[in-house]
């Protein structure tokens, strides 16, 4: 390759990506971080105010509420999705007619635009026109405010997120199960392990790395939940159902407090970077193992 590696040839290959990435990715990250240190809002000239935005954020109840909602969605959906999609992957390994089609159907929600997922679920969760209450109220159960009430929205968002992600998570587990070394499974059943023992003592330990990867991917995706909030409640009532990113969007673009908005963005950035770091450590350990 040395023959074609003149300085100019390398430049031709590297520069387009380097210039674009620097202009539209690296520079914006620095720009946003810088803006978080100013009092920029509306059309006024921004002034440096140090870490004031972060201090104000600490006193902002809506920020803490949006963080709390994000954590609720995270805990509920990861705690549900990891075991559920793992079990589903095991189920899909059984001999079932048209299993391939079933797997494709389960994956389906993952390709639907999140904004459309939100719209679809409005017609499931809406207290008056939604399918859920349409089925429950005739059974004598009082009308439940799945969305738009005081407290249930984050749980409902976790439900919708789980719906959209379960096939995706199942697919990763399924692929992991397919790659388990067959001889180990065979050896354990020859040694007289029951299926249940085999699952607990052979399959699950060997899938530990996949469990980690799925969990972290789900965490990363939870931090990106925005469209669901936008469609289901718009963050309301009075910011009760915001997530971190939807609140960041509101502060930045609707209320035009750019400085505060960017402070929230930096918080999101730090959380995202930490999650990615965890992923990296895990993936590296998996490769060396």
């Amino acid at each position, binding site marked *: 390759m040395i023959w074609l*590696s003149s300085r100019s040839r390398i430049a031709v290959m*590297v520069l387009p990506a380097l210039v674009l990435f620097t202009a*539209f990715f690296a520079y914006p990250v620095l720009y946003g971080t810088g803006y978080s240190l100013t009092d920029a809002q509306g059309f006024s000239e921004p002034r440096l105010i140090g870490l004031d935005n972060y201090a104000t954020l600490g006193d902002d109840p809506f920020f803490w509420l949006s963080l709390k909602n994000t954590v609720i969605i995270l805990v509920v959906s990861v705690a549900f999705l990891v075991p559920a999609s793992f079990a589903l992957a095991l189920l899909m390994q059984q001999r079932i007619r048209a299993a391939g089609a079933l797997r494709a159907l389960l994956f389906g929600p993952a390709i639907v635009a999140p*904004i*459309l997922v939100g719209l679809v679920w409005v017609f499931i969760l809406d207290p008056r*026109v939604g399918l859920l209450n349409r089925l429950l109220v005739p059974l004598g159960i009082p009308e439940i405010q799945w969305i738009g009430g005081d407290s249930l929205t984050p749980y409902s968002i976790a439900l919708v997120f789980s719906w959209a992600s379960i096939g995706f998570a199942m697919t990763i587990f399924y692929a992991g199960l397919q790659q388990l070394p067959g001889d180990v499974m065979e050896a354990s059943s020859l040694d007289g392990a029951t299926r249940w023992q085999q699952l607990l003592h052979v399959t699950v330990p060997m899938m530990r790395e996949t469990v980690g990867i799925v969990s972290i991917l789900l965490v990363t995706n939870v931090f*990106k939940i925005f469209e669901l909030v936008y469609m289901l409640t718009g963050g309301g009532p009075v910011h009760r159902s915001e997530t971190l990113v939807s609140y960041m969007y509101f502060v930045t673009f609707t209320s035009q407090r750019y400085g505060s908005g*960017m402070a929230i963005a930096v918080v999101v950035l730090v959380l995202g970077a930490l999650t990615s770091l965890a992923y990296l450590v895990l993936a590296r350990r998996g490769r060396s193992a």
Partner: protein
Amino acid sequence: MSTRSAPPSPATVHDRQAPAPPVGAPGVRRRRAAHRPAPSPDAERRRRLRARLVVAGFAYLIVFLVVLPILWIVLLSFQQSDQILSDPFSVRTLTLENYRDAIATLPLVQMYKNTIIIATAAVTIGTTVSFMVSFALTRMVFRRRGVQSALLLYFLAGLAVPVYVLLFPVYRLDLALGIFGTYAAVILPYAVVSIPFNTLLLTGFLRGMPGELEEAAIIDGAGLFRLCWSVVVPVMRPILATVVIFNVVYVFNEFPFVSVLINDPDLATISLAVSKFQGQYSVNYGGMMAAATLVLLPQLAIYAVLQRHVIAGLTAGAVKG
């Protein structure tokens, strides 16, 4: 059958409830057979069939629950709007009126045109520059090795950045460049945010690909462009397909960027148009659902055809091989 004292016949060793057969099973089996006659093969087969039916039924039930929201939307799309409020489950009052409404009010062709233009441009740019830089970072010989790995790290670091952080800065950048509100306003960020993941996949693939073909081509006198276009790209077709599919799905479904960077309804992508449905159709739920179905079905149809590739594309990176 499942008590500890009666070890199972070999036929049931693989069954869930069956206890572990002790080591040296054949001897035990003989002893056991003397105690009690083995279940008739017929009963055994029926029992296994029943177990399989239960498992299958359970799987079908779960899939049905996952598909249910989509079926509900499709049902509502054929329902008269006042019927949706009173008795949405009735199938006697189905109508096509909502579709007439939706087609009349929804600029479907325009939405698809916008989305396809943006996706084509963004994915072409993103994939091309990612390929070029990945090739340079894995195959070309840098005078200083450190520069090469530092560059790779620089691009891969982008994987850790949630795109939401970029929304406002890119909005400002688009304004400063005078491209705000045009196709280019979203094409460029879409192309750029794909670079980290593309580079991860492409450099990964290139590292595992032997370089002999390339060397042969160079000895035959191929230039850099010819080498890439006629030798490297053809070999990389599977991974390039994965990259393209991943990015096309991303652009089709993306909402935050487009909601900030495009304000002209004539340039709206599918996602942006869908986000306006609730305002646009207000309480015309039937019309809204017909519009949603018109957006959803083509996407699902394409997915049905390209299913295997789409699944591979969207789980790339998480799934080895």
